């Protein structure tokens, strides 16, 4: 069975040990948990290529992290229960979630801890994710209309995390930074279990827009914001417009990668160039990351994070491991070689399907 990862930048496909990447036009996939966004016409064009070139009939799907709401819950059982399953955890956790949050959302859980104290009370901690049924239904229907049947849906960061565990050599306490095109997701793991998540809405796309603006080129940000209302959808782009938009996006990405946004070595010239360049997006990006780590440290003072693992397509810009190591005073390393750092989730999902 194939694996498809739909992200803000591209659709990545792994089928029969062959990788495919189909760059998407601007504003195809995005939004948030409350207002997830998908442009059916544009994605349908991409899926038609997926079906034709990658020959996919069934797939496991990886969806963007920003479509989910991540929660951490804990509850106490006066008497220890055997076989604490995820359905039980979801049922117990519902009264801790606001009705307007869980209404119309599919919930899944990962149990992080089950402990029985000296008072014989059982304490259960869990990590929950919620995704709106609306977006799940739309994605499933869209894929089905284009001849691809979805068998499994997972979040991007979960798939990346599982890949890293399979790869081995993972510390108990670490931070996972999945820096993509639309958002940067930061997961904090203590004792091998997730304890805190934050999604920063500054990522590759915003650097690209800033670069276009600086170059005096029209920015896609200036184009009218697409409506999540499908009834008011714009007319379907033709294949040529689709190809032009994707090609332009790839070109800007290559230019950004060549521009070396972050210094990759302790070189005076590089550091001076970095300091002299004014970039509001970069400053905001670093500020948000710093705030996130500061907040985690304040909330979990006993947990010391010495390692950060970087994944996601924006890592291809280069220099992030070196820069963040100094910036955050920890060891930051890439989760995989740069040429495949954007497709780690594909391999972990493939292994998961193989193992059943």
């Amino acid at each position, binding site marked *: 069975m194939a694996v498809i990862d739909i992200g803000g930048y591209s659709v990545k496909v792994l089928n029969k040990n062959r990788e495919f990447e189909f760059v998407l036009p601007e504003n195809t996939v995005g939004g948030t948990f409350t207002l997830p966004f998908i442009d059916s016409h544009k994605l349908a064009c991409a899926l038609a290529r997926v079906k034709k070139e990658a020959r996919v009939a069934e797939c496991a799907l990886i969806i963007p992290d920003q479509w989910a709401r991540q929660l951490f819950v804990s509850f106490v059982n006066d008497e220890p229960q055997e076989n604490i399953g995820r359905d039980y955890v979801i049922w117990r956790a519902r009264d801790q979630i606001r009705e307007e949050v869980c209404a119309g959302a599919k919930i899944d859980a990962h149990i992080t801890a089950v402990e029985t104290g000296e008072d014989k009370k059982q304490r259960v901690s869990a990590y929950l994710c919620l995704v709106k049924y609306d977006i799940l239904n739309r994605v499933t229907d869209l894929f089905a*209309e284009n001849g691809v049947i979805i068998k*499994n*849906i*997972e979040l991007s960061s979960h798939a990346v*995390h599982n890949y890293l565990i399979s790869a081995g050599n993972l510390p108990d306490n670490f931070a996972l930074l999945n820096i993509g095109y639309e958002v940067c997701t930061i997961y904090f793991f203590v004792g091998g279990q*997730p304890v805190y998540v934050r999604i920063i809405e500054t990522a590759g796309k915003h650097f690209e827009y800033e670069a276009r603006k600086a170059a005096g080129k029209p920015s896609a940000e200036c184009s009218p914001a697409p409506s999540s209302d499908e009834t008011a959808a714009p007319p379907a782009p033709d294949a040529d417009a689709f190809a032009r938009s994707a090609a332009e996006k790839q070109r800007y990405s290559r230019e950004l990668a060549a521009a070396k946004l972050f210094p990759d070595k302790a070189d005076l010239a590089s550091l001076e160039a970095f300091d002299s360049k004014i970039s509001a997006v970069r400053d905001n990006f670093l500020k948000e990351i710093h705030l996130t780590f500061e907040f985690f440290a304040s909330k979990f003072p006993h947990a010391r994070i010495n390692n950060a693992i970087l994944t996601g397509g924006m890592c291809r810009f280069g220099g992030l491991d070196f820069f963040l190591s100094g910036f955050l005073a920890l060891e930051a390393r890439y989760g995989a070689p740069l040429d495949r750092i954007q497709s780690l989730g594909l391999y972990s999902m493939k292994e998961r399907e193989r193992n059943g």
Partner: protein
Amino acid sequence: MDRKICMNFYVERESALRFSPAFRAARAVIMAVPLIYFSYIAWAYYAAGAEYAELNARIESEQEQLDKYQRELKNSRVLFFDFDSSETVVKKGFFFDFEGPFADTVEAVFSPEMNSRTAKLKESLAGAVRIVRSWERSILEGISRCVAGVGAKVAVSSLRVDFNSLRADFNVKCQSNEELRRLAGAIRGQAWAARVFVSTLKAGPDEVSAYVAISLKEADQFE
């Protein structure tokens, strides 16, 4: 606790079922069944096309023949000419046309049962029915011979034979009384004639017309 986070946000949708390979295969098989059936019918029809045409033509011709036979059957009447010899005749023109003379003499073969029933009927009717011995034909033939023996210009008309009253009568025209007397004498000489009465209706130099009445012998008429 397992470190791997395995969540699944899969939703079951009718659209996915409709486009699944299993659904498509099942739909193709179900749609193919009537197509295969009609294809087979078409193939069978065209394969046996010549035979169908031949059989249809044969049915049409046989239907025509059947209609012809039916018409002929309706238009014919089978008469028993002589019960003793089982002589039967066929008369045409019974239903559709005017009835013609005797068309054909056919032999009717009765089953043994029919023969025994006929014999029983005769036994039961013995004595109850008077069987005419000298029948109409011999009387007519006799009169005809008598007329022929008298002369060429003797005309007989309105001849009637009534076995109930044992009487036969006719009108006659001849040239002279002599011929009339000779005719009456010839008829008296017939075996079936008892008495002959002649009543002259008109007498002239060249023509004599008379009414002749003949009483038939009862014993000679019936068995």
